[in-house]
């Protein structure tokens, strides 16, 4: 069969490891051959499934902290007279160096926090752009909540929405900084709002550093093209984000806070 030679190389093609010219020929063939297209689709699904299933284990916060401390330790150097002179010089400029160090650390810290908010916004947009934004489609919180059982390493409560104006569309698993979490999608007056729930310990930042009442956090959130709210409760970090009004975002957040 003509397709046999294609099938032999199908995995290599899907891994993007065949030369560009051959890639184009392959693309053209797959478009016209139902058998190869079906095979390619099945293999792509398998690749995606392995990718999700493969991200299975996360280190504990305690282990991360220990490793961070270990790696941050500078290598020992042999002391000699030259080094002692250098050490004296270092003492003289200690104040300047300390200030610089704190500024650098502060820069990294703020960059990390901005990165988290930016990722949340990306996850929200990417999901809504998808043709199948939710993996569990249900308006019933008693269906959606148990769906997460065994998929994420924590439990959380979903609020009762009766007469609130909000409706639950469904949920899906998500990842942020390689930590698993829950992504729930709500609707209010045709606006979609995402609620993300992660374990607080998944983040390298302490919980207070994400407090939106801090002016620096408020400034970070203000940069996003969405209204947002974030808080920590019972060891879990919640993010609510969407293009609905800030009042709607706050109302949904309030319902979650009351349910937790």
């Amino acid at each position, binding site marked *: 069969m003509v397709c046999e030679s294609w099938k032999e190389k199908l995995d290599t093609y899907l891994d993007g490891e065949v030369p560009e010219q051959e890639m184009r020929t392959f693309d053209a063939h797959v478009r016209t051959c139902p058998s190869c297209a079906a095979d390619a689709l099945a*293999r792509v699904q398998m*690749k995606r*499934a*392995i990718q999700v*299933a*493969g991200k*299975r284990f996360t*280190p504990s916060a305690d*282990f991360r902290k220990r*490793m961070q401390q270990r790696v941050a330790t500078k290598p020992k150097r042999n002391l000699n007279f030259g080094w002692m002179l250098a050490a004296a010089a270092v003492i003289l400029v200690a104040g300047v160096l300390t200030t610089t160090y704190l500024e650098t650390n502060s820069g990294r810290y703020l960059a990390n926090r901005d990165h988290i908010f930016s990722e949340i916004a990306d996850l929200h947009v990417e999901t809504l752009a998808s043709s199948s934004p939710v993996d569990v489609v249900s308006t019933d919180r008693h269906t959606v909540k148990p769906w997460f059982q065994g998929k994420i390493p924590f439990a959380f409560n979903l609020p009762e929405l009766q007469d609130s104006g909000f409706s639950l569309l469904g949920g899906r698993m998500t990842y942020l900084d390689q930590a698993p979490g829950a992504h729930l999608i709500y609707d209010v007056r045709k606006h979609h709002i995402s609620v993300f729930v992660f374990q607080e310990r998944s983040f390298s930042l302490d919980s207070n550093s994400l407090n939106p009442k801090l002016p620096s956090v408020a400034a970070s959130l203000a940069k996003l093209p969405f209204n947002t709210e974030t808080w920590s409760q019972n060891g879990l970090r919640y993010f609510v984000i969407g293009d609905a009004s800030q009042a709607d975002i706050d109302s949904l957040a309030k319902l979650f806070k009351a349910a937790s």
Partner: protein
Amino acid sequence: MDVSGADLKPDSFEELAMPLFDQLYNFAQWLTQNRDEAEDLVQETYTKALKGFSSFQLGTNFRAWMYRILRNTFLTSRTGLRVTMTVPLDTDEEGPELAVEHETPETLMFERSNRELLQGAMDGLPVNFREILLLCEVEEMSYQEIAETLSVPIGTVMSRLSRARRALRDRLRPGFQEAAKADIATRTLVRGTNHGL
């Protein structure tokens, strides 16, 4: 993650190595299949890498270098030595590809939406198949990066990856467990009969 000489500062190790921490840990636990052993393996990897950082070749792939240290450390550990006793040999011989089926292992798996089924099948793979699948699909390494990490030629990467995928698909076929048990029972019976002769 290529590192040029100009960028290599004394404190670069932390900046380069810590972003890989979660993925290295995930890879370590897949290899060891034990949380404590995975922590020991990651800790030893970082200690070795920190010590050898000055000898790290500038301009080469830092991520592949870290994974290579972790893997070599694993292979010389007690668990690593035990699991590699049963690793199938790499051969260039490939069996014929199966024709497209209406009910492929892939479609069956998706119908069941069973991630645990896939994880269980991956757990059961020989360690050299498991690691190459993780490097390709989870870490999204190129064949060149995988070759550097495993210290094997690209041709071996391709053939091993192909065999790993086939082995995984076989494990996802319905009745795999039953067939494996039946096979063991048959072999035991034959062996017993032969002893009788």
